[in-house]
């Protein structure tokens, strides 16, 4: 659980904030709000009830303290826009309407800070005094205005008060920043004076941060990492040998924590438009508020219906009651019922533990066998013996350059997994890393031809072949790979070469992309506005670094010419097979059509529907012949359906339809198929094919075997809308 926090934003809304300065295309306030909204929406996105926020504006036209301070004398032109609370989307949208640059010149920054202090104080105080909270005040100011410095000591005392310390940050618009070498030209002397006053108060008196807005906005681009508290997935013994049976064994108390874990982007949930707007009453559990588009959404519930086969019932299926259902498993197509009391019978009896099976030299381990995310294995907390023992184990592995293989059971009755244990020794910590290894059943034993030589059918080895690289290509590849080295491409702070694209420099593109647009949409609820592009940092590693490419141009050119790769034009792909001489031949290369005397016409044979149809299409280019084949095929399909007992022949019919659709698309004669399928639909729905055949139509529809539209074949006259319409009814 993260620490409770309370943050108050103190915003300068004075007239000067509405100006555009130094060639920026945004007003100062818009620029500042980029930062503020990002902060606020990031907090809202966490959904935490314990992350509280408030907003105070100064140099506002009006004065409204919402009763934070009883006597508002001396607090003129200060507005509390939101008290300290958990923000919801609605609060964000409300605030957006209200935070506008004012006409006001007057309004005191320090008084606004005083209000903020008071707001935090009352929100974070329990009956017995200050509660445990992270307290923060973030101030945005452009440094203009008249400041009242009377009570600064008192404010500083409150901010630095031990039990209720507040972290204060001031972000200035165009404040001087000696560290980054920024100095505002022609700075107004009053502003310069104010800047110094604020700096002194924040840095010297309060120990806070005094920075510039420019820097803060720039840093928004760097994705923030979410820290997750480490939760052990296993606590138990690392054992070598069986301590129950043998004397000499080793057991070490260890704990296992995640080392890598995919950070998943938020997932979207399903909703449906509300249709009951007229009658708002009803058993809606949590009615959704009006959302961004003004439409209302309602949550979606899933309901499951269970059926079993029953040859006597109409449709051959009957619905069954959930009460008559029990747990079981499928063994092939046999149902095995396992009663509640027997539930554990299929479970392997196991006891928790991490038992070493053996060791292997690191170099002999095939790196691609590691098949899971990784974990730390650490000594039990505060157990000195375990610390020493595990340390010796880690170092022994490291020095012997070996890994351990162990059997891990994390909890009683959980399935064992085999893990690889790898030593990891860093400057400030050491640990074992575990990663799961495959069992026999996890390996698929596909075979692939050798890459560095060719075998002829007779078993002769060939070393020169178009599929094998020649010496030129090998040489060019070698130079290119070597020239594109990243291990020393980056330059570190001291100017020394270092690794480019370290793990810690790469950020999950989709995760931060989705978070970015969610935050963006929260403050840009106009559906007409265009989504922002992803921040550059997310796409930085989507291509080789340009400087490196520039340096390796020659090597790449050499490789390209040695490789001589040709792209296959899209037209040729998959086409042309209808031409007889291009048809696939058996291993021997025998021309089967010739064997059959190259018939000009092949009759559709219901016994072998699909093969004879394909053969018929390849036999001729004559459109009439083709049409006849399609007609015959269509006739056979209808016969299949008509003769079908129940749904028995639907599968075959469906397959024949698919083949017809695919082949005809390839022939670029979509109308032949479209005519057939229109006709078939009509017959099915009219019950002309041996009774109620609606199920068959639903199957066609479900398989999307409808009209061939323009998208699928350019020769089609059917629009996508027409094709979609066809599925209805």
């Amino acid at each position: 659980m993260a620490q409770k926090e309370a943050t108050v934003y103190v915003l300068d809304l004075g007239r000067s904030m509405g100006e555009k300065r130094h060639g920026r295309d945004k007003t100062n306030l818009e620029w500042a709000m980029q930062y503020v909204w990002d902060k606020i929406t990031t907090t809202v996105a966490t959904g935490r009830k314990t992350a509280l926020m408030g907003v105070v504006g100064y140099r506002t036209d009006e004065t409204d303290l919402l009763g934070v301070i009883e006597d508002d004398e001396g607090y003129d032109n200060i507005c509390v826009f939101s008290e300290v609370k958990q923000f919801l989307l609605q609060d964000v949208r409300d605030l957006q309407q209200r935070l506008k640059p004012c006409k006001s010149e007057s309004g005191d920054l320090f008084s606004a800070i005083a209000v903020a202090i008071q707001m935090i104080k009352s929100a974070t105080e329990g009956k017995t005094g200050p509660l445990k909270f992270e307290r923060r005040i973030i101030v945005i100011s452009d440094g203009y205005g008249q400041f009242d410095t009377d009570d600064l000591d008192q404010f500083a005392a409150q901010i630095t008060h031990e039990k209720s310390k507040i972290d204060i940050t001031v972000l200035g618009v165009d404040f001087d920043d000696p560290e980054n070498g920024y100095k505002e030209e022609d700075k107004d002397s009053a502003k310069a004076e104010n800047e110094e006053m604020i700096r002194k108060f924040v840095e010297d008196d309060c120990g806070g941060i005094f920075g510039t807005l420019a820097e803060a906005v720039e840093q928004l681009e760097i994705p923030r990492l979410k820290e997750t508290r480490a939760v052990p997935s296993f606590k138990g013994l690392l054992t070598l040998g069986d301590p129950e049976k043998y004397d000499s064994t080793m057991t070490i108390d260890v704990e296992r924590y995640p080392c890598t874990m995919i950070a998943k982007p938020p997932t979207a949930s399903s909703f449906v438009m509300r249709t009951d707007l007229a009658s708002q009453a009803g058993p809606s559990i949590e009615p959704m508020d009006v959302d961004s588009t003004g439409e209302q959404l309602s949550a979606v519930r899933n309901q499951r219906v269970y059926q079993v086969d029953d040859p006597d019932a109409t449709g051959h299926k009957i619905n069954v009651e959930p009460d008559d259902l029990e747990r079981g498993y499928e063994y092939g197509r046999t149902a095995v019922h396992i009663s509640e009391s027997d539930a554990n019978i299929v479970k392997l009896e196991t006891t928790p533990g991490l038992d070493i099976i053996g060791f292997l030299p690191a170099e002999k381990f095939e790196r691609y066998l590691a098949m899971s995310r990784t974990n730390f294995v650490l000594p039990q907390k505060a157990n000195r013996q375990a610390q020493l023992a595990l340390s010796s184990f880690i170092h022994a592995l490291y020095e012997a350059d070996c890994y351990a293989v162990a059997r891990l059971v994390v909890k009683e009755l959980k399935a064992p997994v085999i893990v690889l244990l790898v030593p990891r020794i860093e400057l400030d910590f050491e640990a074992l890393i575990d990663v799961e290894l495959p069992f026999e059943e996890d390996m698929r034993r596909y075979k692939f031809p050798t890459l560095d030589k060719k075998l002829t059918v007779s078993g002769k080895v060939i070393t020169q072949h178009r599929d094998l690289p020649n010496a030129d290509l090998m040489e060019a590849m070698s130079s290119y790979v070597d020239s594109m080295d990243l291990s020393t491409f980056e330059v570190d702070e001291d100017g020394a070469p270092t690794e480019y694209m370290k793990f810690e420099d790469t950020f999950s593109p989709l995760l931060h992309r989705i978070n970015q647009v969610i935050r963006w949409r929260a403050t840009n609820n106009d559906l007409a506005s265009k989504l922002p592009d992803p921040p550059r940092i997310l796409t930085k590693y989507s291509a080789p670094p340009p400087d490196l490419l520039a340096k390796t141009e020659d090597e790449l050119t050499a490789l390209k010419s040695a490789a001589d790769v040709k792209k296959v034009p899209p037209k040729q792909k998959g086409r042309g097979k209808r031409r007889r001489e291009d048809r696939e031949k058996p291993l021997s290369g025998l021309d089967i059509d010739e064997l059959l005397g190259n018939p000009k016409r092949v009759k559709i044979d219901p016994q072998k529907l699909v093969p004879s149809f394909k053969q018929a299409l390849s036999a001729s280019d004559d459109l009439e012949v083709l049409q006849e084949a399609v007609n015959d095929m269509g006739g056979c399909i209808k016969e299949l359906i008509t003769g079908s007992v129940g749904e028995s022949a639907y599968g075959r019919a469906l397959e024949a339809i698919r083949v017809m659709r695919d082949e005809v698309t390839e022939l670029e004669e979509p109308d032949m198929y479209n005519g057939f399928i229109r006709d078939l639909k009509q017959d099915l729905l009219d019950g002309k094919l041996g009774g109620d055949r609606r199920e068959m139509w639903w199957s066609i529809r479900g398989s999307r075997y409808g009209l061939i539209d323009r998208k699928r074949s350019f020769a089609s006259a059917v629009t996508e809308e027409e094709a979609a319409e066809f599925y209805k009814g």
Partner: protein
Amino acid sequence: MADPSRDNRSGEEEDDDEEEIDDSSYKTIKDAVLFAIDVSHTMLERPPASTDKKADRDSATTAALKCAYQLMQQRIISNPKDMMGILLFGTEKTDLGDGDTTFQSCYLLSDLDVPAAQDVKRLRDLLENEDEAAEILKPADTPASIATVLFCANQIFTTKAPNFSSRRLFLVTDNDYPAKTKQDKDTAVTRARDLYDLGCTIDLFPISRPDHGFDRSRFYDDLVYPSSPSDPDAPVMPSTTSKVAKTGDGITLLKQLLSSINSKATPRRALFSLPLELGPGLRIGVKGFILIKRQEHVKSCYVWVGGEKVQIVTGSTTHMADDTARVVEKGELRKAYKFGGDTVQFTPEEFLQIRQCFGDPVIRIIGFKPLDMLPLWANMNKATFIYPSEADYIGSTRVFSALQQKLLKSRKMGLAWFIARRNAAPVIIAILPGEERFDDAGEQTMPPGLWLIPLPFADDIRKPPEMGETLKTTDDLTDKMRIIVEQLQLPGGKYDPSRYPNPDLQWFYRILQAMALEEEVPDTPDDKTIPKYRQIDKRCAGYLAEYGECFEETFSTMVLHGAAKGKLSHLSSRSKSASAVPATGKRPASARPKHVKVKREATSDKERYAMTDQQMAEMNDRGQISKLKVQDLKEWLFPRGLSTAGKKADLIDRVQQYLERKMG
């Protein structure tokens, strides 16, 4: 491909907004395998009796049936939705089920279907019961025509597995010219072509006899096609001829057959087909395959017990609006993100834009690094295998080969930006060269190619929990442990997955099979993952004892030195019970092995992991006591007879008071 068992009524749209690369689609390709096993006099001939244990005992037909039996059981585990059937040909009996005698000398032992428990039993009975076998496995006077077998297979596939995208005929025979006349052969050739046009593959498992090598070119090269219709680009490797072993050959026919059949157990299908970009303007085509994937057992399902027979239930889901309980069509569903107690919405077009702003699917190489820059801790998931394909780029294979060889030679890896398919999340991967490996018999065990290993982003890397100051090993102690590490090397110094069947999976299906056949449930699992304790003891007992002594010594010196307050030398309550172990073990204390911690006592987990007085004192001295959780404090207080009531501060007070009293 259509799947008639699914509820198609709602007119499902293609689901475009899928999140991760999900392997399930990879699995949904349904596969039907029909074994066609030759039953002839030569196939039935048994090898000469031999005293050699490793020698063949099976006739070729029996070996093939055993393979089929094993494959059937294996497929129930690995491909529970897939079909399998067994057709014997050349038999005296003719029966295609229900007395159908259309196809002369064809005997359908097991119809093409998802296997039922009874099919497994029937096959087993045939293998175990000689009388039954003798009756069925009786060759006809005239051998079956291969054309008839192929036509028969055609009919079976057409009617039983019409919509399966992968349909394969596994043909096991030792006859390399099953034709009398040219006419016979021509008919067979056309039948084979029909099968090919139907979308079926013939996988030939030829058997050579000691006196007669199988020659494919005589007949079968005219029947077998170089590519499979379900995966036109997947490279096809003709299976090697299995030889009937001579006595003492070591590798039996059964083993050879099993090995070639296993490599075809699941149809190979590419997970993706993508361009691999080596540099701007240089792309080649590759296909991705999953060669490693955790095999899970089937999930439990609902069965209907309301009828006479237990039946599997099929469920279907309907969506309903939560407020009105109105049934909602899939097309009406809208996706939105929950945000601040409300929803943030995007149009479907925007949803596409959000994901597709990273560009088209590609494997784009960013550069190269030495292999040792890929630490094992940086693993995220299983690796994907890639192999070149000429379908989109001519010349891909040679460039791929050059890259693979270069990476192997220089021990380097590529780093790449990888989008597996449209809408998939981009990831950074390491591209590792995979070396081709063979077993003793020269069969490929690992294919040559490249492996894609997904790497963690900064977001995926977790910090280890704070450990504070910990004790560190000494050189002496490390050396003592190192000897043990070196003594206990795995066979061949490598991890070989084939030595470790998944004990949980095997057990699950053994039980399930027994229950399905209503047989007795076995009670001892065969678990190959349990360490070989006896060997460990034999090889290492002495070294472990030495290590144990060294450990005790090192530890006590360290603790004495580090314990300024002189309290830490106290044996904790648990260390005391540890020293009690050897006493009951009747062995001299000097030979006492090292037990870093106690052996498992008959205590509950909670007590076992609770901290000792000493550990708590140390925490307290280091000022870390407040970092303990309330639960930890309570677990510590309770067994000491102290109250566990009150707030955390109260608990800490109580702990400290206790420590003061106890430790003085």
